[in-house]
């Protein structure tokens, strides 16, 4: 018998009233995969991420986590890093990271003291070391650069060892050089913590570089009179080998060609995606 896939979508639909966002999604993801999701804006990739997070319920069909319906609200099994507002502005780096442990071990006060606190601080400091924030350990988020904030957000998300890490355009606002550093960090943590990662990105090369599997979200059917009548689906599900650089040139050309073809009007958004 095959092991149950970690995430499984069975004929999954998502509608907001008449607006169909996702339709007939059938997909399986095994533990340890690194999924990158690209597509034009409004194509449902962020909606799918929200459904994985438990913020949005499926309209019909099933979204399963290890064979059971995914919990209807966010919890510690799925960590998240947003593009912004991911860290708590009133806590220092260290306080931000130990917060999850405090939630776990102090049900009533949500705050640890004395020896218990020192234990989680030691654990947090190791994690902060891994993401390279040790010099900033007592600083507040507003004193950090964008890249440092995202490093903090990642460390914070990982301390309770979620099996799934969701990344919602985490590096979209960062400079290219810093983004390259962040890529190394994410790949390192993905291996060390044996994570399953879902990442929404606007940057196709980033998607190819990081993922073991690249999903392109788009609409298969279109009605010019009613653009919201049909939803998007995963139109391309590309496995990417770790010994990369063999496929990307070629596949990326296919995907770019496809995206260019399928769009009636080139939005600036898409230009961004293709550049």
């Amino acid at each position, binding site marked *: 018998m095959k092991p149950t896939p970690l995430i499984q979508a069975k004929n999954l639909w998502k509608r907001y009233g008449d607006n169909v966002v996702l339709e007939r999604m059938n997909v399986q993801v095994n533990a340890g995969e690194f999924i990158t999701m690209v597509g034009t804006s409004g194509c449902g990739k962020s909606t799918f991420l929200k459904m994985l997070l438990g913020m949005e319920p499926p309209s019909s069909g099933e979204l399963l986590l290890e064979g059971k319906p995914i919990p209807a609200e966010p919890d510690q099994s799925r960590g998240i890093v947003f593009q912004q*507002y991911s860290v708590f*502005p*009133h806590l220092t780096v260290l306080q931000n990271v130990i917060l999850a442990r405090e*939630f776990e071990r102090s*049900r009533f006060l949500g705050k640890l003291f004395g020896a218990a606190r020192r234990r989680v601080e030691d654990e947090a400091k190791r994690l902060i070391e891994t993401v390279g924030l040790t010099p900033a350990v007592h600083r507040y988020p507003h004193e950090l650069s964008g890249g440092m904030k995202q490093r903090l957000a990642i460390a914070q*998300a990982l301390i309770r060892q979620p099996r799934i890490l969701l990344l919602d355009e985490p590096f979209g606002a960062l400079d290219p050089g810093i983004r390259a550093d962040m890529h190394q960090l994410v790949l390192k943590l993905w291996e060390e913590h044996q994570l399953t990662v879902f990442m929404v990105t606007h940057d196709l090369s980033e998607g190819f570089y990081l993922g073991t599997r690249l999903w392109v979200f788009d609409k298969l059917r279109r009605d010019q009179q009613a653009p919201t009548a049909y939803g998007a689906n995963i139109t391309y599900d590309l496995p990417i080998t770790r010994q990369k650089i063999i496929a990307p040139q070629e596949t990326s050309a296919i995907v770019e060609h496809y995206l260019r073809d399928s769009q009636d009007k080139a939005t600036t958004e898409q230009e961004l995606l293709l550049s």
Partner: protein
Amino acid sequence: MKRLINLTPSKPARVLLGILPFALILLVYLFASDARQAENASDKLLPAFSQMGDAIQSLAFEPSKRTGDYLFWQDTMSSLQRLALGMGIAALIGFSLGILTGAIPTIHAPLAPLLTVISLIPPMAILPVLFIVFGLGEISKVALIVIGVAPFIARDIQRSTQEIPLEQLVKAQTLGSSSWQILLRVLIPQMLPRLISSVRLSLCTAWLFLIAAEAIASTDGLGYRIFLVRRYMSMDVILPYVAWITFLAFLLDWLLDRLSKRCFPWHHQEASK
């Protein structure tokens, strides 16, 4: 010549320009007062500074002949006590209500419309009700401040709570927190500096309610005194009292600002970005 909107005075020029209107007002007063005093030495409308000094001297540093109290300080103490008590209770009620209605939809649904309506009642209009219910003692004066200020603070905090990015709440949940823990560790700490600015904003109205209540029914207090001596047209008492009230208001505002900057540095640097 640059456009007017691009002309910024240098720092010393700004300080000088800031002092200028105060100096002008003082000067105008001095001349006007002098002119009236020259015409009629017992003029009460624009007393000289020496007369004001004498009046305050006798109120502040000589025991009252009738009660043996130092009236100026006693007035100050009673007023500040009422103000502090009223603002304290208002802040406590407003903060709890604001956070709860802002964070928890099932509390928001029944309470938010009620809160909106209550905040629209002009507090002065129900002062008679307070006098009837609580009597003419301290409670009704404190209650007026509470009723006047708490709904404002509650709505202000409610709005700020709702403005906390959803991302933060989701993030906290993915870190395994309960609703209670989110309140305790995420919302309340972030709303405390908002509470201070809310209190600073509403202090002005609190003074208004305090002085009004004291004017109507009291036996001491800054508001009581100025309304009492109005009968004798004692501008030499009223004007220094007004200046003193203004100074106290300024001092309270400044202290709260310092407190906020000291306790919540992250809030102020965040805001200035």
